[in-house]
């Protein structure tokens, strides 16, 4: 009549103290595992500085940082969504839409046919509109996931297509060129005015600032705590009185907004918005998050880890170019790195 329930946890005492022979393993191995992305990055950097002449050239470092900045924005936003146990496949399309909106408004303004007027935009206004576009897409994703209860994969897959289509509609399928000096500075300028940091490219400054803000948000705020709790155990979070739906919506909102920022950065760097920009970018963003140690099932990961993951992918990308590896092999190698990172994560998950 009484329930017979297995009692696995009664026998599983808190990890017993290890004897001295294991002590060394316990102190070094976890450290190696914990900082594996950093180690991999260091190994890669050392290898590239030995194997190539140009890795440490100012030109190359600026290239790496410029190229990373777009993925950094996307990946940092993606981290928040992944922490909740979700995913956002729409960031590449969102980036393209935001870039197109910003470029279109900056270039030609917005024509209201009904009143026969043209609303002109300053560069700043156009940038704000682009970021707002990203936020709006993020809001839609969040509502689809929390109100209509669509699985994140499906909801954002739909949005991937919708945002791409809207981009085509907005641009009529044509690229928008020559955005003006503000964008040129944002995309290709440097911190010339600041001593010592004069060589730092603008886009990485912007992306880095956002990454820092998001890192603080994830680590220190109540919202950040909520992200981890919702992803770690959604039922426990709900039972503890946390506004689960609101936390998820906010995560998608951040992610969309940062995709908007990434779109503005990309348009600035290329001095153009093309309707097919950002195709496949979601994969690099997700890869950075995963390489950074986040679990796709949620609840585990850090923004700092994602930043490392971004650096690793960025350095790898450019390293393979410097080494003259064929683009086809580049893709294969990148895929292998992602698999290795996740496999290592799985293999060591029990240690934490």
């Amino acid at each position, binding site marked *: 009549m009484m329930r017979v*329930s297995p009692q696995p*946890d009664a026998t599983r005492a808190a990890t017993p103290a290890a004897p001295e022979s294991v002590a060394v393993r316990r102190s070094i191995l976890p450290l190696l595992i914990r900082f594996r992305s950093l180690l991999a990055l260091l190994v890669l950097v050392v290898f590239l500085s030995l194997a190539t002449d140009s890795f440490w050239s100012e030109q190359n470092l600026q290239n790496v940082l410029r190229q990373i900045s777009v993925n950094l924005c996307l990946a940092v936003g993606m981290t928040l969504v992944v922490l909740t146990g979700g995913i956002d496949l729409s960031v590449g399309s969102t980036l393209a839409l935001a870039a197109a909106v910003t470029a279109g408004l900056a270039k030609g303004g917005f024509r209201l046919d009904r009143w026969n007027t043209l609303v002109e935009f300053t560069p700043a206004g156009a940038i704000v509109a682009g970021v707002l576009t990203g936020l709006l897409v993020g809001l839609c994703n969040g509502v689809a996931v929390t109100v209509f209860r669509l699985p994140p994969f499906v909801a954002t897959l739909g949005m991937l297509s919708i945002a791409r289509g809207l981009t085509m509609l907005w641009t009529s399928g044509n690229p928008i060129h020559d955005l003006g000096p503000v964008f040129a500075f944002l995309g290709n300028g440097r911190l010339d005015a600041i001593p010592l940091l004069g060589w730092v490219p603008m886009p990485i400054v912007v992306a880095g600032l956002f990454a820092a803000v998001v890192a603080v948000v994830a680590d*220190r705020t109540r919202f950040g705590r909520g992200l981890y709790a919702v992803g*770690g155990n959604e039922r*426990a979070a709900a039972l503890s*009185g946390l506004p689960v739906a609101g936390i998820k919506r906010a995560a998608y909102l951040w992610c969309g907004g940062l995709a908007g920022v990434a779109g503005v950065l990309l348009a600035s760097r290329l001095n153009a918005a093309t309707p097919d920009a950002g195709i496949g970018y979601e994969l690099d963003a997700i890869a950075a998050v995963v390489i950074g140690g986040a679990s796709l099932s949620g*609840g585990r990961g850090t923004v700092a880890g994602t930043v490392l993951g971004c650096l690793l992918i960025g350095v790898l990308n450019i390293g393979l170019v410097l080494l003259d590896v064929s683009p086809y092999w580049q893709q294969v190698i990148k895929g292998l790195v992602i698999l290795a990172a996740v496999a290592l994560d799985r293999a060591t998950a029990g240690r934490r």
Partner: protein
Amino acid sequence: MADVSLAVRAGEVVGLFGLMGAGRTELLEALAGLHPGRTTGTLRVDGAVAAIRSPREALAAGIVLAPEDRKADGLVLDASVAKNVSLASLDTLTRFGFVSRRREDSRGRDAVARLGIKTPSIAQAVGALSGGNQQKVVLAKGLACGPRVLLLDEPTRGIDVGAKREIYALIDDLSRQGLAVLVASSELPEVLAISDRILVLAEGRMTAEFTRAEATEQAVLHAAIPRARRTGAVA
């Protein structure tokens, strides 16, 4: 469930006994705001009617549920002891959206000391603790909200004997401090040992109420057996 009416006074431990499927968990969950829209009735805390449609509102009304399945419903296993303890009371640690880690850690340390949670540190992931210590973390999380009413669903399930005794002592201690405690359990000896009063559920209905003096194993068990089977046994 239907027609269940109960009162738990401050300083009282009320046992809720029933066989599997009697509705113990459902009753506690309903009180904690987990089944809005599927429940009717009134709930009063300290005489004031509390309209509870979510766990958040239940917490605000001073009602805390320590769920039966602590791993699935109670804890974030990857997160630290300190973070789990503060999970339900984050609002009180937050200023301008930022969580004070200093106050969170001291809340965690207080909980470890007060409940005797055996853990290497408050930074330890709760997933690595034993069942009894995990249960204490669940209780600490609830207590950190400063509740008036404590709903415990099978609080000693899957816990070793020593930790069980500590949980019983804690329940006793909390009721002395003026909390109203409702303990649902399928272990009859446990219910008899810790309750001031015992309510019996069978098939979603309340079938009997005993004071501690009246309660015997036989009487309680008899009230808990579903009616259909009881008549069947006679015939």
